[in-house]
Each structure stands twice: as structure tokens, then as C-alpha cells.
């Protein structure tokens, strides 16, 4: 058992500051346990969002020592406890209170993305046939738990606050899961280029680094989408080929 100091962000949209709390850390504790212990023993009015404590609901996103993390999946034994540990809310979204941010912008963005549009059913009973090899690629994207850590770390949102012009890595993952789906026949490439702002991503891979589900966001979702956007809008040879052979 060690005594550790946590600097927790306390405040709301108007004002706030870090406050120090000391608490005992025992074997096996995660950061969320420490925060709960502080809440129970010293700060009953502390706002913290959580749900599953198993890294599956995506609620407990915060910044631990400046790095976007799920608090429930960050072991205390993996962070240096000899110095105070800072815990603060995500920076890309408006603060509600203490560690809780308003992530509803993400849900509005999701509604804007053209939904799944399957081709005509393959069989008379209204069902489709797919090969596993064709959905392997999009299955990775289905692991997303919408923790929005990738949105938080992405400098286009975090630093430049371009929420109007850029949908963020989470929604490129979502877009890729639809766009590369073997049954889907919708075309989202124009939106990706224009309203979704895929050109603002400069492939720095910070989103990939923080994803708790280990989705290879940049290499497997964003870059393949960028390449498809190039096919459609920037590559004269591809345009020529497409006259003879449509996409499939």
C-alpha cells in the first residue's frame, strides 16, 4: 500500500482549478478506483462519469498525466506514484463539471453521416450473402466503444477546434465501416472530402496511439478513405479507368 497524491480538476465551464487529494493505493487498483475512493472519502460532490469498469462502455475517458485514457483501464501500478498524478477532463469537448464533459457534439456528427444502404437482397427470402474475407476489414471498426479519446487527442479538434469542418477520427472509423462494407452501395466520398474534412487529418497517428480498442485508425480507416477520395477527385488516370470499369 502506498499513499499517492492526485491532482483532480475541479470546476465548471466558468472557473476551475486542480485540487490535491491523497489516498491509499493498494494492489490491483486502477485510476478510476482511486477517483472513486477520493469521491467516497473526501469529495462527495466530485463529478465523474463511468459505467462498466471494464473498458467497454467508453464513459470514463479523461486525461491522466496529460494523456487521454480510460480511467478504468489505467492501472495505478503503471503510472509513477512518487509524484502527484494529474487527472483532468477531455479538452476537445465543453466541460460540464469536474471530470465530466459534454460529448453530444459527437452524436450530432454521427447523424450527419449517410447511413448504411445495402444493395438489393441476394436471395428471394430477402437475405444477403457475404464472404468472411470481405468483412474482416470492417470488423475491426466495429470494436469502437465511442470513448472519444481519439477525438480528444486529435489536434484538429483539440488544438484548432475545427468542429465545424472536421468530423474527427472516430467518425472516419465509422465512415470506413460503412464505405468499405461489401453490401453497402452508398457513396460518401464527396462528404468525406467536403463537409467531413478528411483533408485536415495530417496522419500524425495520435488517434491510433490512444485507442483503447487498438483500432488501427489512421492506417486502416483514414488512409484508405483518403486514397478513395484521391481516386474520386484528384487522380486523372483513375477517372479515366472508371469510365471503363465502375467501382465495386
Amino acid at each position: 500500500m502506498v499513499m499517492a497524491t492526485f491532482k483532480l480538476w475541479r470546476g465548471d465551464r466558468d472557473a476551475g482549478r486542480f485540487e490535491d487529494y491523497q489516498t491509499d493505493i493498494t494492489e490491483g487498483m486502477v485510476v478510476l478506483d482511486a477517483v472513486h475512493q477520493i469521491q467516497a472519502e473526501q469529495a462527495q460532490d466530485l463529478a465523474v462519469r463511468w459505467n462498466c469498469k471494464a473498458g467497454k462502455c467508453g464513459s470514463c475517458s479523461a486525461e491522466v498525466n496529460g494523456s487521454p485514457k480510460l480511467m478504468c483501464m489505467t492501472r495505478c501500478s503503471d503510472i509513477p506514484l512518487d509524484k502527484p498524478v494529474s487527472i483532468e477532463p477531455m479538452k476537445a469537448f465543453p466541460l460540464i463539471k469536474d471530470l465530466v464533459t459534454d460529448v453530444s457534439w459527437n452524436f450530432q456528427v454521427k447523424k450527419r453521416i449517410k447511413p448504411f444502404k445495402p444493395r438489393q437482397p441476394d436471395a428471394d427470402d430477402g437475405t444477403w450473402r457475404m464472404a468472411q474475407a470481405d468483412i474482416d476489414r470492417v470488423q475491426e471498426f466495429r470494436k469502437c466503444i465511442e470513448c472519444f479519446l481519439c477525438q480528444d487527442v486529435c489536434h484538429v479538434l483539440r488544438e484548432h477546434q475545427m468542429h465545424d469542418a472536421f468530423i474527427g477520427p472516430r467518425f472516419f472509423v465509422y465512415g470506413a465501416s460503412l464505405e468499405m462494407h461489401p453490401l453497402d452501395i452508398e457513396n460518401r466520398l464527396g462528404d468525406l472530402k467536403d463537409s467531413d474534412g478528411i483533408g485536415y487529418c495530417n496522419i500524425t497517428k495520435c488517434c491510433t496511439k490512444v485507442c483503447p480498442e487498438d483500432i488501427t485508425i489512421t492506417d486502416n480507416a483514414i488512409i484508405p478513405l483518403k486514397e478513395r477520395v484521391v481516386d474520386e477527385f484528384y487522380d486523372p488516370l483513375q477517372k479515366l479507368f472508371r469510365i471503363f470499369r465502375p467501382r465495386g
Partner: protein
Amino acid sequence: MAQAELTLKQHGFGQTRRRDLWWLQPLAVFAGLSTFVIYTTWAAFQGEYYAFGPYLSPLYSPELFGESSHSWFGAKPSWWPAVLPWSPAFLILWAPGGFRLTCYYYRGAYYKAFWADPPSCAVAEPRHRYLGENSFPLILQNIHRYFLYLALLFVVVLAYDVWNALWFTDAATGATSFGIGIGTLVLAANVVFLGGYTLGCHSLRHLVGGIRDRLSASPARLKAYNCVGCLNRRHMLWAWMSLCWVGFSDVYVRLCAMGIWTDLRIL
């Protein structure tokens, strides 16, 4: 949505609450790429000591015009403006240079290391204005696939150089015989590393399979897509290995040609 104000506004270049050595990786990239660019520029301007026996430095290959025995179309062309410095490397180096400059891996790396955009993940930037690759000039990065086509040709040419590096001419008799020197191995390793880098390119991955939603319909495509994907997973590693080795190959040929190193014959 209009708002989404930052909850805790960060101010000032480099500000972060990260405690790890976040500056180490961008600094290493900065040092590595700067060293390479300075060395290759210097080496390209030399215009000599780029060939030794059957070996040709990869920075000078293909030698379209030049004085060495590897030249394809003879000596320095007469149309080359007299006011400009001349080196056979000038004619070709833009192609592999452009391939690396527009490579998805290097882009992400040098935006951080040379332009601090961002300096590192979750670290504050020096500038507020941001255009990304959405408009001129960086929208031009989208020509990467055209550089890929050229880079694939270069891999073939460099493989041909390895073949040439297997045939040694006896200075006394003029007879050519099969052999393997350390230089042959250096140039062969160069093709392996460059091949691993070029064949793992994101644009190639797209071209061979990423372009399609249903790959199972063409097993050859699926196989190619998986192979490129396999190399692509380690694209950063291949990028650095090939970068270092290209530089080293030039150093090797150069020092042998200058008589500083002795090329050992294995066979």
C-alpha cells in the same frame, strides 16, 4: 455545431501535462531526416566517386547520363546548361525523394518533427492557423501514387544493379567473371529494404485491393492485398531501414571508390 470550447485552454508552444519523454521521438526524427537530407544533397553534388568496379551508388542509379561505365545514354548531355552544376544524381534523385516526401508515414512524422503540427500528441502547438492537407500546398501530397509508380521502377533498376554487381572485370585481362563482394551484398540488402518499403506503401495497398469492397471475388487481389498489408504494418520500420541503408550504400561505394575502404571479395 458552433461551439465545443476547450475546457482547459492550453496556451503556449509545447505546453502539456504529459510527463513522459514526448519530445524524444520528434527529436530523433528531426535528427535522422536532417542528417539524411544533408548527406544526400552533399553526395548528389559530388558528381564523382559514385561507382566502383561493378558497383553503382543507389543515389546515382539509374545513371542516365554520366562518365562511369554504368551510364545508359553516354556522357553528360550537351544540352545541360553550363551555368548549372552537373551531377548524374540530379536527373533521378527527385523521384525517390518525392516518393519519400509524399509517403504517408513520413508526412505524419515530419509534420511533427519539422513543423510542430503538433509537436507530439496532446502537446500544444506554436500556431493557431491550420490548413492541413485540405488545401494548397499540402493538398499536393495526394500525388503520392504517381511517385509510387516511379519508385516501383526504381526497385527494378536497383535489382538490375545487383545483377551487374555480380560480374567483375579483371583489370589486367579485361575478362568478366562471376563474383560476390561485400559491395554486392550491400547493394542486395539495399534492394530488399527498398522493396520492403515500396511494396508496403499505402497507395499500393489501395491499388491492389483497398479500392474494392469485395475482394473475395478475385483471390489474386486478396492475396496481393494481404501481402502488401503485411509489409504495411511495419511501414515505419521499412522506411527507416531503407533510408539508412541507401545512405550507407552510397558511403560504401564512395569510400571504396576513393580508396579508403577495400572491398573484400567473398567469391
